[in-house]
C-alpha cells in the first residue's frame, strides 16, 4: 500500500494538521527542543536566552522564529506536535486551553465560554468546503 495517497483525504479536514511521517521528519528537532524543556536546568537556560538556547538544536530559522514569536499554528505547520509544544507553553506557564484559544484566534473568555456551552460543533467544521462557504 502506498504511504501517500493523493489527494490525502485528511487534508480536507479544516483547521487540522495531522502529525504524519512527513511532519514528524520535518519537526524532529523542533519537537526534541520542546522535549528538552522537561528538565528544570534546560528551562532555566532557555528562559535566560531563548535565541542562544535554540541554536543548540539544528532547527530551521523559520522554526526558531516561530518559537521565539510563540506562533503556535506556525510551529504546528512546521512539524511541531501539540504534546511536544505543551512543554514549551508549560514553561511559559500557559495551559492547553489558553493555547487552544490563541490557535483559534479567540479571546480566552470567548473560547472558555464556547467550551462551557458545549464546544465547537462538528456541523460546519467537517470539510474545507464548509469553511469556504461560510465566507
Amino acid at each position, binding site marked *: 500500500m502506498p504511504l501517500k495517497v493523493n489527494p490525502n*483525504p*485528511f487534508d480536507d*479536514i*479544516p*483547521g*487540522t*494538521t*495531522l*502529525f*504524519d*511521517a512527513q511532519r*514528524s521528519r520535518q519537526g*524532529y528537532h523542533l*519537537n*526534541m527542543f*520542546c*522535549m528538552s*524543556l*522537561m528538565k528544570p536546568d534546560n*528551562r532555566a537556560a532557555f528562559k535566560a536566552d531563548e535565541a542562544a538556547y535554540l541554536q543548540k538544536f539544528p532547527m530551521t530559522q523559520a522554526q526558531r522564529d516561530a518559537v521565539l514569536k510563540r506562533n503556535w*499554528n506556525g510551529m*504546528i505547520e512546521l512539524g511541531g*506536535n*501539540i*504534546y*511536544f509544544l*505543551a*512543554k514549551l507553553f*508549560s*514553561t511559559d506557564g500557559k*495551559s*492547553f*486551553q489558553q493555547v*487552544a*484559544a490563541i*490557535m*483559534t*484566534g479567540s479571546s480566552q473568555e470567548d*473560547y472558555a465560554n*464556547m*467550551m*462551557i456551552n*458545549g*464546544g*465547537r*460543533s*462538528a456541523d460546519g*467544521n*467537517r*470539510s474545507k468546503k464548509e469553511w469556504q462557504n461560510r465566507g
Partner: protein
Amino acid sequence: MAKLVAGVATSHVPAIGAAIDLGKTQEPYWQPLFKGYEPAKKWIAEQKPDVIILVYNDHASAFSLEMIPTFALGCAAEFLPADEGWGPRKVPVVKGHPELAWHIAQSVILDEFDLTIVNNMAVDHGLTVPLSLLFGQPAEWPCQVIPLAVNVVQYPPPTGSRCYNFGKAIRRAVESFDQDLKVMIFGTGGMSHQLQGPRAGLINRAFDTAFLDNLTADPLGLARMPHIDYVREAGSEGIELVMWLIMRGALDEKVREVYRFYHVPASNTAVGHIILENEA
C-alpha cells in the same frame, strides 16, 4: 486461574488531575464532573480488582520521537509518575505485576501481537488521572497496575480493528495465567476533543453518544471505523478512542453496561466514562 471481569473506559484529561491535586474538585466548574464519578468509585471499591491493565497513551513524557512503540507493555515492579514539565503529580508510585505482565507479553507475542516490553517507564497523566478518578487520593493505589501504552500521537496509530483483536489476545493471555486474580482492563483517552489549530475545541456529542452505545450494541462495527472518521468527527485527539477498543476486545462479545457518564467540558475535552461487565 486469573479472570478478566470488567472493563472501564474514561477520559484522562490532565486538567482533571490538576483539579484533584489542587483541591478544586468542589468548585462549580469541576463539581458536576467529579459527582459523575462517584458511582464508579463505589462500584470499584466493592469489586476490589487485584490487577488493572491500564491502556493509555504517553504524551511525549516517557517516549519522545526517539522511539515510538505502537504497543508498549510495562513489565516492571513499579512505575514513577512522570515530570511533564511542572513536576510529577503527587500521587502514589504505581505498583506493577511483573509476573502477569511478562506472561501477557509472552502470550500475545506468540499470538502474533508483537508488542514492546518496557522495564523502565515513567507514567504520565494518561495513566494516573484514570486511577485518581476511580480511587481518589489514597496513600497507596489499592491494586497493581500493568501499563499498556499505545501510540496515538504519531500518525498512523493502530487501527480500531487491530486494537479490538489485540484486546482479545490480552483476554486469552490473562485467562491462561495460573493464579487466582481478579483482573480489570481500562481503556482511556477521548472522547471528542481537538487541542490544535483553528478547529481546536471541537466537541461532538452525537458521535460520542453513538460510540458509547455501540460499545455494547455493535463493537465490531465500531472496530471497523477508519481513522479519518475519528479525526473528522471527534477531533484530531479524538483518535485516542481506538484505545477503548482494546478494553472492549478483552471482554465477552455480550456485555452489560453498568454505568455511563458524559460531561462537557473538562478544559478542551468531552469527558466520557463507561463501565462494562462480562455477563458471567
